[in-house]
């Protein structure tokens, strides 16, 4: 494009560069103020103590990071978050794929199905969490009632250490699968029907067709969904706030929720900054994956 710089817009002799900078200036200033500056300030403040009352912040070197290393809650939050990602992502992807394959075919009631699958995506997570809170309620909730009908004791899903995090994972899978479905659907719809016919002529079974033809062709969509799901797993904690507040005993704490707790519950801003640095590192890793893989995608555009 720079080779076409000679075709400069007629701006009464104003050089292109001036226009370029002026047009980008408002957006760039705001981005710098609320993305780049806070990211750097987070790193900076992670090397200081939290100012308290009359005591100003003082340089603390790596003290906050040492505290982090020895903080069992931090490690639990991190492991919870990894488990949360590992538990939700493959299941969401599998369900999303099944949904897309079904909705792509001429099944009876396809319109209703697409609506049913996609609806959770447009609902606020807070609303969704409230509904599921009701769902999970001991004794009164639908799940408890269904289990009572079969004479089973209904556990306190959100109140026990073993089930709190999995219960949140179910909500996430329910909320996200329909969103991921549409990316598979887009990929499926861009495929030629001849592909399927050719595979059938060759005598391929349905599974072989899926394994050898569809799955490789859907790989760009899968990677896209994977990275997005990974970022969401570390970015979205609305359901934790509404449903468990990290409990019981930090069993369902996720990293961002812990940052929220430390920063705005205990007001330990320096330690919250240190935790945020870890979160930013995780997101940077996800971004790296994104650029390595997604920019090689060939099936879209």
């Amino acid at each position: 494009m720079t080779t076409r710089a000679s075709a400069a817009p007629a701006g009464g002799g104003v050089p292109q560069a001036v226009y370029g900078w002026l047009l980008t200036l408002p957006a760039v200033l705001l981005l710098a103020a609320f993305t780049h500056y806070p990211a750097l300030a987070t790193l900076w403040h992670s090397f200081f103590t939290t100012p308290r009352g009359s005591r100003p912040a003082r340089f603390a070197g790596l003290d906050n990071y040492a505290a982090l290393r020895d903080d069992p809650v931090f490690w639990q939050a991190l492991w919870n978050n990894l488990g949360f990602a590992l538990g939700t992502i493959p299941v969401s992807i599998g369900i999303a794929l099944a949904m897309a394959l079904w909705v792509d075919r001429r099944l009876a009631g396809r319109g209703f199905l697409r609506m049913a699958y996609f609806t959770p995506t447009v609902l606020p997570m807070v609303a969704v969490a409230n509904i599921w809170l009701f769902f999970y309620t001991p004794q009164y909730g639908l799940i408890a009632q269904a289990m009572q009908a079969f004479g089973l004791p209904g556990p306190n899903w959100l109140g026990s250490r073993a089930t709190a995090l999995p219960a949140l994972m179910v909500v996430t899978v329910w909320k996200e699968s329909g969103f991921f479905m549409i990316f598979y659907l887009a990929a499926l719809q861009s495929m030629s029907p001849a592909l399927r016919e050719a595979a059938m002529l060759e005598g391929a079974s349905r599974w072989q067709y899926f394994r050898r033809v569809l799955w490789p062709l859907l790989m760009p969509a899968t990677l896209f969904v994977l990275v997005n799901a990974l970022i969401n797993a570390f970015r979205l904690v609305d359901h934790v706030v509404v449903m468990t507040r990290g409990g019981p005993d930090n069993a369902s704490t996720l990293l961002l929720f812990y940052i929220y707790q430390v920063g705005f519950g205990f007001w330990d801003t320096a330690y919250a900054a240190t935790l945020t640095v870890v979160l930013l590192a995780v997101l940077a890793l996800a971004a790296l994956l994104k650029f390595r893989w997604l920019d090689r995608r060939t099936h879209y555009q």
Partner: protein
Amino acid sequence: MTMTRRLDTLGAWLLGLLWILPLAYAAWAAFHAPAYATRFDLLAPLTLENFARAWHAAPFPRYFLNTFLLVTMVLAAQLALSTLAAYAFARFAFRGRDALFLLVLLQLMVMPDVLLVENYRTMSLLGVRDTLFAVGLPYFASAFGIFLLRQAFKTVPRELEEAARVEGAGPLQILMKVYVPLARPMYVAYGLVSVSHHWNNFLWPLIITNSVESRPLTVGLQVFSSTDQGIDWSVITAATLLSAAPLLVAFLLFQRQFVQSFMRAGIR
């Protein structure tokens, strides 16, 4: 063949019903008297009582207004800023453009959503804590919007721009008369995604707001259901459905548009 087809239909419907179940359950509780909240009797009388009680029990009209103002303000700022920046990135040659664009893209992974502590500090310094303006401000400049619009602008044929220039149009006129109209589908897609995102946004508004005057609906709902209500599920589910209703109704009316927008904005 018909056998597998039947199995497919069965599986698809089972999943569909399972997926709609939580919402249907919430609707059941919201439209029936509290006595029926957890008792299923098809003949139970329907009522709007829970909605009326929720509406009066908390300042929901104000929350609705706040959320409406918030998404309007954010969208307007995003569209204006992203359009200008995307135009520059797509069509102007200037030193440092590519480096600047990379810096912009950085926001796609370092989202304001996770920079809570520092942005809170900034808002305190600016003296705008606990205002709607502060809820929206970090999102005014959107890397995502700039990226999408830049892609759209790049597909506009140069000849159209040349033609407009021959007629004496300046750069801004060319932008408004040529580029913006041609990128309309992208504007619709981005608009829908942005509105649903900010309608649903929760954590940052929860932190930065502290009063009825500035709280958006999501935070208002949380305050209402966690403190005011105890465990009156009928009223809570009514309030929940109420707060999701505008987006839900819009989605049911314009399903295709929604799905296509999310697709277009996601795939880029």
